[in-house]
């Protein structure tokens, strides 16, 4: 029974991982550029939710879309101001561009918000459910379900709408898309916005049941890499499955081996997959 409990809480966390990793995989698939600051975007969203609640007394119904909007703008700005330019440069510039951004965000947060952990009150959304002996906190349930729904929604928008087709067309072949009258630059900016907005929602959701600190983004970035890598680069459904899987693996290893080693298991798995199948478990390219 405890094992089932662990698996369920792993799945709920995994759904949130899947959400922000979908954003990373979208960006990646679009332009073959990694956002090394992805986890730090999540961190910013967590603080955005925290301050929206403590300073403006806004509830989750407001701060979740609010964080998404703020991060969307940040994503577009980062694309226009930085990524668009470094993407044409040498590999070193591509890597250092967003990596430097990660450092700036992380330590600016450190400087502005101090190293102290903060958290939103536990009872922000209801208490704890008891479903057939499984105890699930309402905030985690809400987070998991909402994340799952939005990830699926993202997949549907990408595959079923004209806009999604345009985005995927640019991802597939930039020049061919241009010949079809699609503006790649605009689509890529949009992808960065949507990718960052996914971290906005995810961060606001995590903030409801997880501590918030300036350096939390570092391990979240790595988790996003792992998920994207496992799920195949550019694949939202892949990220969904891999995100849920990583959530469960993390929860199980924390339970079976010890919480300190949960990251060790995930990172080791990551390296193993990179070494054995550099294209990802479900990827093709």
């Amino acid at each position, binding site marked *: 029974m405890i094992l089932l409990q662990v698996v369920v809480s792993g799945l709920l966390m995994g759904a949130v991982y899947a959400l922000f990793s979908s954003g990373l995989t979208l960006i990646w698939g679009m332009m073959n550029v990694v956002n090394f600051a992805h986890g730090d975007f999540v961190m910013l969203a967590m603080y955005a939710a925290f301050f929206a609640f403590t300073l403006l007394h806004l509830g989750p119904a407001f701060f979740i879309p609010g964080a998404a909007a703020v991060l969307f703008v940040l994503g577009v700005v980062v694309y226009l101001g930085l990524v668009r330019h470094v993407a044409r440069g040498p590999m070193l510039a*591509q890597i250092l561009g967003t990596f*430097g951004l990660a450092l700036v965000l992380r330590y600016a947060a450190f400087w502005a918000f101090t190293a102290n952990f903060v958290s939103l009150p536990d009872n922000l959304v209801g208490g704890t459910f008891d479903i057939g002996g499984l105890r699930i906190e309402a905030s985690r349930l809400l987070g998991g379900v909402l994340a799952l729904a939005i990830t699926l929604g993202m997949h549907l928008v990408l595959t079923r709408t004209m806009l999604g087709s345009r985005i995927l067309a640019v991802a597939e072949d930039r020049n061919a898309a241009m010949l079809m009258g699609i503006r790649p630059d605009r689509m890529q900016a949009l992808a960065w916005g949507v990718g960052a907005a996914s971290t906005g929602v995810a961060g606001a959701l995590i903030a409801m049941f997880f501590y918030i600190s300036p350096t939390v983004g570092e391990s979240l970035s790595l988790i996003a*890499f*792992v998920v994207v890598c496992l799920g195949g680069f550019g694949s939202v459904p892949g990220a969904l499955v891999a995100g849920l899987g990583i959530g469960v693996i993390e929860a199980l290893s924390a339970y079976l081996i010890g919480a300190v*080693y949960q990251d*060790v298991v995930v*990172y080791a798995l990551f390296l193993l997959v990179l070494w054995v199948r550099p294209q990802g478990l479900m990827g093709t390219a």
Partner: protein
Amino acid sequence: MKQWPLVLLGFVAIAAWPLLTDDVFLQRLGALVLLAAISASAWNLIGGYAGQVSIGHSVYFGAGAYASLVLYTQLGWPPIAGAPVGMLVAMALAAVVGTPTFRLRGHYFSMATIAAAELARILVANWKLLGAAVGLMGPPVPRSVVDLSFISPVPYHYLFLAVLVVLLGLTWQMQRSRMGYYLAAIRGGDRAARSLGVPVLRYKLYALLLSAAFTSLAGSLYVVMVGFIDPDSALGILISVKMVIVAALGGSGTLFGPLIGAIILVPLEETTNAVFGGSGTGVTYIVYGAIIVLIARFRPGGVADLWRSITVRMARRAA
């Protein structure tokens, strides 16, 4: 190289630095610049010349630092005697971790190195023999001269300078040899290099082994001077970041780029630390991050590239 007189002048100035000032802060600054130049020059072999951007070089730095102190705490060796052991450990790690990782290109390689370094940091932070989260201390009082424990930073300055000169000499030789051209080809692109008949994986490995050995030596030299190590100060991601940014600022893949980067960045870092006190580290890394972003955005070639374009323009004007 028409710039030899300039280079010679630079090294004479560096050698004379501790004699020009009595201020311990400034003398220590000189030693720290040289140490940063050593580790960034070591990173430069794989990250610059071969173009494989490792953000996990703290693993090798940590190997040297920990080898030196664990052999002291367990067997009573003077810390510097652990340096060769650390270099061997680092090279073994490089061979084991590097070989599979080298099949990855570009971003994938960088991500793998970050994950490997984080893995190492967490494992060491939970490893009793290595002092776990608390870390390890060197000899509190020097037992003999071999402990290389001096109050003045000046002896370290010359020790580090000697190592740097050896490393840059080796790099210069490498740059002019077959290996230098192979690495330049690899930097330009794996596939193109392979199609030209360059044994890509083998030469990446050679570059990494050399790079790991000297990064490890830098770790040993660091603990010889500082006498203390913990998981964050030896294996934290910022250790790796510092090597990358020092090299990238000066000019990655150039002989003197890392040294130039160190001369610019280390005084900046020490000054912000001194000005902002304990909270300075945070501010330092905001500045670091901003510099990285600016380099990436405007001058991926670093200061060396800037210098080249200025001299070219001057030559053109003279002609």
